[in-house]
């Protein structure tokens, strides 16, 4: 049995992972997702623990196996996140949305207001505590409004993330007892704001520091303490680097290069640009 084949004979156990999907969002998102993973240890694994601990105490066991199986775990997570078609919404989100769909709690006008307010609050740069103080939502219980607002925001972000089309959204909302009118209102707002939301979500996350600009300076080296009459020109290059991650702006890359080295640098960049062009044409 291959070491890298996760499905094998031997003991197996299930791991439940609780994680918060939108950690960096400005809103307090209450949704949680659960991923159940079937995790099999292969027989060829000679670790004695494998055979003795079966079907028990998943948490203590993960520690001993984290090394060998972590990469498999990550692969499973990534695979399922990238390819999941169904909208997975937690219970509290579903309940909140069902309340929003209920005509006795929210009439059509206040539902429209709620939708608008939710989209607006997702797109605004700063979290505004007064966002739910809209006059259209006056007569409704404050706690209920907050719950529905949070549920709607979670749902919207999940839809944008998975780039859901109209049928997916409609079927999802229908399951949550939305009537056709409300689905239409929701869909219109969603379409109007989708692109901007995509931009917001794309900008979240860690990235390599990236280069925006370059500035150059040509200097002439005449002499130094050890050698006189050097008489060589050289360039000082400064690559302006921006890091949109959490660490703040990274330092610029400064280096010197002779004329030949600069030619080499430019040549390599041209190669890279050419290969990029070829890749885009394919």
């Amino acid at each position, binding site marked *: 049995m291959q070491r890298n084949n996760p499905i094998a004979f031997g003991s197996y156990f299930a791991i439940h992972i609780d994680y918060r999907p939108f950690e960096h969002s400005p809103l307090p998102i209450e949704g949680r997702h659960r991923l159940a993973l079937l995790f099999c240890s292969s027989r060829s694994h000679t670790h004695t623990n494998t055979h003795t601990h079966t079907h028990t105490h998943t948490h203590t066991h993960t520690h001993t196996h984290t090394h060998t199986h972590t990469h498999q775990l990550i692969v499973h997570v990534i695979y399922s996140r990238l390819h999941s078609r169904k909208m997975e919404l937690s219970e509290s989100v579903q309940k909140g949305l069902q309340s929003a769909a209920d005509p006795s709690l929210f009439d059509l006008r206040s539902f429209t207001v709620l939708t608008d307010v939710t989209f607006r609050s997702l797109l605004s740069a700063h979290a505004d505590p007064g966002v739910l103080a809209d006059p259209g939502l006056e007569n409704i219980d404050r706690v209920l409004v907050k719950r529905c607002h949070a549920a709607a925001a979670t749902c919207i972000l999940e839809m944008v993330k998975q780039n859901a089309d109209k049928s997916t959204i409609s079927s999802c909302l229908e399951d949550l007892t939305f009537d056709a009118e409300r689905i239409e209102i929701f869909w219109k707002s969603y379409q109007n704001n989708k692109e901007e939301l995509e931009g917001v979500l794309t900008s979240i996350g860690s990235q390599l520091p*990236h280069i925006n600009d370059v500035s150059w300076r040509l200097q002439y080296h005449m002499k130094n303490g050890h050698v006189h009459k050097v008489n060589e020109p050289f360039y000082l290059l400064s690559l302006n680097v921006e890091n949109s991650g959490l660490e703040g702006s990274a330092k610029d*890359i400064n280096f*010197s290069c002779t004329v030949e080295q600069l030619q080499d640098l430019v040549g390599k960049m041209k190669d890279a640009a050419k290969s990029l062009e070829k890749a885009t044409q394919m």
Partner: protein
Amino acid sequence: MLLVLSEEYKEHLAFLPQVDPAVVFEFGRIAVEFLKRGINSKVYDGAARKLGFPITTVQHGVEGLMFLFTESSKLMITDIDFKDSVMVLGFSTELNEILLQLYVENQTTIRSTLTQLAPSLPSYHNLEWRLDVQVGTTSMNATQPQSVCLQNKSWGAAPCAIRLFPW
């Protein structure tokens, strides 16, 4: 441009005319070797014993020659100037010729050795790049590639990317 040689320096080199020109040539060669590879004091012992001079004299002599060559290479002195500077030391013409020959032969190597001593700025070494396509992140599953990255790796710098936005 002439070299300015101090009195002390002239004293150090004073014993050179007393030995064979071949020995002077040998000392010159040793001096250049030391400039390239570093000083090896065992050579001083051997030479001192063979010639019957005290070690310090031999050491001063070789070091004096080293100084002569480094200063001349540093200032890029022409042959004529070198000859004139060496004449001040009061050596025979033959000796001067030997020294000049050594200087001319080794000038470039000595200069390149000296260049390594000079302070240097972080300089470009190599650029390695690769093309990456970002397919999705934790917060966004992209249906089409959102951005394409080139990664630069210059000497002394961490990898960074050039982000190209979708075509």
